[in-house]
C-alpha cells in the first residue's frame, strides 16, 4: 500500500485549520485509519475534539526540522496509512518536495487555501512567496467568497490557470466544487489522473500509427513541402525571436514603468508620431517585435501608442527601405510610399483606438501582468552585475518558451495555408483593381512573409496585379500575418485582435484608396 501525503498550504489565517477540521469531521474521513497530522504553525483556530479521530498530531516549529529523515521517522514512530500536512505558506515548498521519501510514500495533493477576496492582493504584492505554492498546487481552495460575483470568480480562476493550467480552482461555497474537491481526498487512487496518462499514451500511439500512412500515400510529398516551409519559417525566426526575447526581458526588468509611460504620453498627439518613428527605426523584423510589444504591454504602456508602435515597426524598418529600392529599381517613389503608408496606418489606427478610449488592461489577457518576468519572480543566484545578467538570461528564456509556443502554432498554420493559397489566388488574376486589392489582402493574412523580404514576393505578383494592390500586400502583410496575430494572442485577447485586424483593414483601404487617387 502506498502512503499518501496531502499538503495543505496557505498563509496564516487563510483558513487551513478550519479546512482540515471540516475534513476530519466529514464522512470522507471515516474511511481513514492511522493518520498523522503534521502541523507547521499554530493558527488562531485550534483543532478541537482530536481525541475522536485516529489522528496523531506532530508539531514542527521550524523549516529546518523537515529533513531527509523526517518521513522515515514518522514511518518508524507511527506506521501511518495517510499523512496530512498543514504547511506554512511562507516556507519554501520546493524544499519539502525535494526531501527523500521512504519507499511507497508519495505526495498526492498539494492544496492551497486562500481567502478569495485577498487572493489577488497577495499574488500581486508577494509573487515570490505565493507563486511557488500555486504553481505546485493541484487545487486552490478559495474560501470566504460570498461577496464575489460571477465575473470576479472567473477572473480568479483565470489567474490561477495562468500560473499553472493544470491547477483546479474551487470555491468552498459552490456545492459542485465541493463534490469535486472531495474526489481529491478519497483514500484510493483517483481515476482522472490515470486518464491524462492514458491520453498521452494514446497520442503517442496515434502518432506512430500515422508513420506508415505518410510513407505510402501521396500525402507524404505534401507533408514534405509543408514541413520544409514550416521549418524554414522557424529557423529564420529563431534569431529574431531570441533578440526580441532579450530586449523584452530587459525592458521588463530595468526600465521603470513610469518612465515608459511618461515617454509614451508626452504631448498627447505628438506621441503617436514618436511611436511610429520609434517603430520605423527599430531594426528588428516583425516576429522579433512581438515579444517586445508584449513586454511593453505587460508594463501597461498606453494601448493606442503601443499599437501604433507595433504596426509601424512590423511594416517598416530601415532595411525595408533598401529592399524596396532593390526590388523595384527606378521607382524610389514606391519605397517612400511604403514607409509613409506603414507609419500612416499605424498612426491612424492608434488615434482611432485612442478616440474609442481603449485601455490596456481591458484588452490584455486577464492579468498577463502576473506573467511578467520581473526581478522579483526569478530566483537569481548571483548578485551585482552578474546577477542582472543572469536575470536577463533567465527572463529571456521564459519569454522564448512563452512566445515559442505561438510561433510554432503560427508557422504550422502559415506553412499549410501557403501550399494552398497561391493556387487559390490564381483564380482571381486579371480582375478589377478592387478585386485585386481584396485578393492581396487575403494573401497578406495567409502568406507568412517577413517584412524584409516581402517586397520581392510582391514583385513576383507584378505580372498579374496592379501596383497599388501589390503595395497594400507589402505593407499589410506583416501587420495582418496570421502567424503574427497568433503570436500576439499570447498577450492580447482574441476579440481585440480580431477588432484590430478589422480596423487595420479599414484604415488601410482608406489610406491606399487615397494613394490610388493621387498615384
Amino acid at each position, binding site marked *: 500500500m502506498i502512503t499518501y501525503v496531502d499538503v495543505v498550504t496557505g498563509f496564516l489565517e487563510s483558513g487551513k485549520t478550519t479546512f482540515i477540521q471540516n475534513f476530519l469531521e466529514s464522512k470522507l474521513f471515516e474511511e481513514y485509519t492511522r493518520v498523522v497530522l503534521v502541523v507547521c504553525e499554530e493558527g488562531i483556530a485550534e483543532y478541537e475534539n482530536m481525541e475522536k479521530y485516529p489522528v496523531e498530531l506532530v508539531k514542527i516549529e521550524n523549516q529546518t526540522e523537515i529533513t531527509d529523515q523526517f518521513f522515515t521517522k514518522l514511518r518508524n514512530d507511527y506506521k501511518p496509512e495517510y499523512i496530512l500536512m498543514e504547511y506554512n505558506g511562507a516556507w519554501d515548498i*520546493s524544499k519539502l*518536495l*525535494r526531501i*527523500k521519501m521512504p*519507499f511507497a510514500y508519495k505526495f498526492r495533493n*498539494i492544496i492551497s487555501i486562500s481567502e478569495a477576496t485577498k487572493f489577488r492582493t497577495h499574488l500581486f504584492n508577494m509573487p515570490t512567496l505565493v507563486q511557488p505554492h500555486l504553481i*505546485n*498546487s*493541484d487545487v486552490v481552495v478559495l474560501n470566504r467568497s460570498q461577496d464575489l460575483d460571477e465575473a470576479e470568480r472567473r477572473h480568479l480562476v483565470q489567474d490561477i490557470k495562468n500560473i*499553472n*493550467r*493544470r491547477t483546479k480552482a474551487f470555491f468552498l461555497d459552490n456545492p459542485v466544487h465541493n463534490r469535486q474537491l472531495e474526489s481529491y481526498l478519497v483514500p484510493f487512487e483517483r481515476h482522472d489522473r490515470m486518464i491524462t496518462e492514458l491520453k498521452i499514451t494514446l*497520442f503517442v500511439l496515434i*502518432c506512430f500509427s500515422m508513420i506508415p500512412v505518410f510513407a505510402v500515400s501521396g500525402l507524404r*510529398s505534401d507533408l*514534405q*513541402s509543408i*514541413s*520544409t*516551409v*514550416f*521549418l*524554414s*519559417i522557424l*529557423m*529564420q525566426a*529563431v*534569431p529574431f525571436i*531570441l533578440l526580441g526575447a532579450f530586449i523584452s526581458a530587459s525592458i521588463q526588468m530595468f526600465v521603470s514603468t513610469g518612465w515608459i509611460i511618461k515617454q509614451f504620453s508626452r504631448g498627447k498627439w505628438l506621441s503617436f508620431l514618436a511611436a511610429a518613428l520609434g517603430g520605423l527605426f527599430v531594426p528588428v523584423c516583425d516576429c522579433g517585435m512581438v515579444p517586445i510589444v508584449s513586454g511593453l504591454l505587460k508594463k501597461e504602456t498606453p494601448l493606442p501608442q503601443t499599437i501604433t508602435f507595433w504596426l509601424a515597426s512590423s511594416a517598416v524598418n530601415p532595411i525595408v527601405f*533598401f*529592399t524596396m*529600392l*532593390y526590388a*523595384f*529599381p*527606378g*521607382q*524610389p517613389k514606391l519605397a517612400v510610399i511604403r514607409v509613409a503608408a506603414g507609419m500612416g496606418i499605424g498612426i491612424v489606427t492608434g488615434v482611432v483606438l485612442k478616440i474609442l478610449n481603449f485601455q490596456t488592461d481591458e484588452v490584455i489577457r486577464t492579468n498577463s501582468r502576473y506573467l511578467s518576468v520581473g526581478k522579483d519572480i526569478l530566483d537569481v*543566484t548571483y548578485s551585482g552585475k552578474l546577477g542582472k545578467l*543572469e536575470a536577463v*538570461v533567465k527572463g*529571456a*528564456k521564459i519569454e522564448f*518558451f512563452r512566445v*515559442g509556443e505561438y510561433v*510554432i502554432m503560427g508557422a*504550422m498554420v*502559415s*506553412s499549410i495555408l501557403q*501550399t494552398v493559397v*497561391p*493556387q487559390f489566388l490564381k483564380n482571381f488574376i486579371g480582375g478589377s483593381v478592387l478585386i485585386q486589392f481584396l485578393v492581396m489582402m487575403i494573401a497578406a493574412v495567409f502568406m507568412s*512573409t*517577413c517584412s524584409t*523580404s*516581402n517586397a*520581392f*514576393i510582391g514583385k*513576383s505578383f507584378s*505580372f498579374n496585379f496592379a501596383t497599388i494592390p501589390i503595395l497594400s500586400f507589402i505593407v499589410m502583410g506583416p501587420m495582418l500575418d496570421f502567424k503574427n496575430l497568433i503570436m500576439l494572442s499570447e498577450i492580447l485577447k482574441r476579440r481585440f485582435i480580431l477588432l484590430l485586424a478589422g480596423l487595420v483593414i479599414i484604415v488601410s483601404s482608406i489610406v491606399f484608396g487615397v494613394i490610388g487617387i493621387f498615384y
Partner: protein
Amino acid sequence: MGKKRNVEAVIQISILLGIAVLLFYSMISKKINDYVHPRFFPGIWLSILVLLLFAVSQISNIKKARHNESLSRYILFLIPLAAAIIFPANGVKNAELIIANGNRQETIGVTENQEVEDEDVLDVTEEIVEEEMLAGDDISEKYAKYEVDGVTIIQDDIFAEWFTDTYNSLDFFLGKRYQLLAQVYTVDGFAENQFLAGRYFMVCCAADMVVYGVACESDIRSQLTDEEWITVTGTMSQCDYEGETVPMLTDITIEKAEAPEEEYIYYSYY
C-alpha cells in the same frame, strides 16, 4: 527513493539542446541551404550559443522539485524536431515533389517599367546611382570581365544581378552570347519549342521561393524533361510574352549538367 527532480526543467533543457543540435547539424551538413538564406547564418550560429546558454542557466533549477507540473505545452516543441527527423530536407530529390505541389509559382521574372520617367530619375537615391550606374551607361559592361571566347559565363554568384539587369535594360544585352547553368521549366503560354531556363531564387527562406529565368528557343526542346539541369549557351534577343517584352536566348546549345551543390540562387540585396 531518490531525490525528486524538476521534470519541467529537464524537459526544457532537452528541448533547448534539441533545437541547438538541430540547428548545429543543419549548419554543419549544409542542409540549412534548403531552408534559409545564407545571410541568416551568423544569426543562427549566435542562436545556437544563446540556446546553450539558456540550457546552462536552467541546470540549477533541476534541484527545485516540482509537483503537478503542466507539461503538455511542451508537446508543441516536439513538432519541429519530429518534422526535421521524419522529413529531412533533401534538396535534390524533393525539389520535384515540391514543385508538383504548385507551392512555388513559376514566373518569368519581372517586367517593371523600364522607361523611367524624367522626374523619377532625379529622385533616384545615391545607392541606386552607384549600383545601377547612370541611365544611359552600358550596364552589360559589368559582365565583360566574365567573357571567355566570346561567351559571357554567368556563374551562380552573379546570376541574380545579371538577371535583374537584363530585364531592366535589355537593350544593352541584345546580341551578346551568355552561358548559364539552369533547370528546364515549362511555362504556360510558351510556344512548343520554347522553355524557361530558370533557377529557384530564395529571398529569405523556403517559404518565399520563386523560379526566375530566361526564355529559350530550341529545336531539341522535346528532348528536355522538366527540372533537368543543363548548361545553356545562347545569344540574347527578345520576345513578346503576354504583352511584355522579355529577354530570350536564341541560337542555343545545350549540354547536360550535374546539379550544383547549392541548388538555389540566394538573392542578396545589401
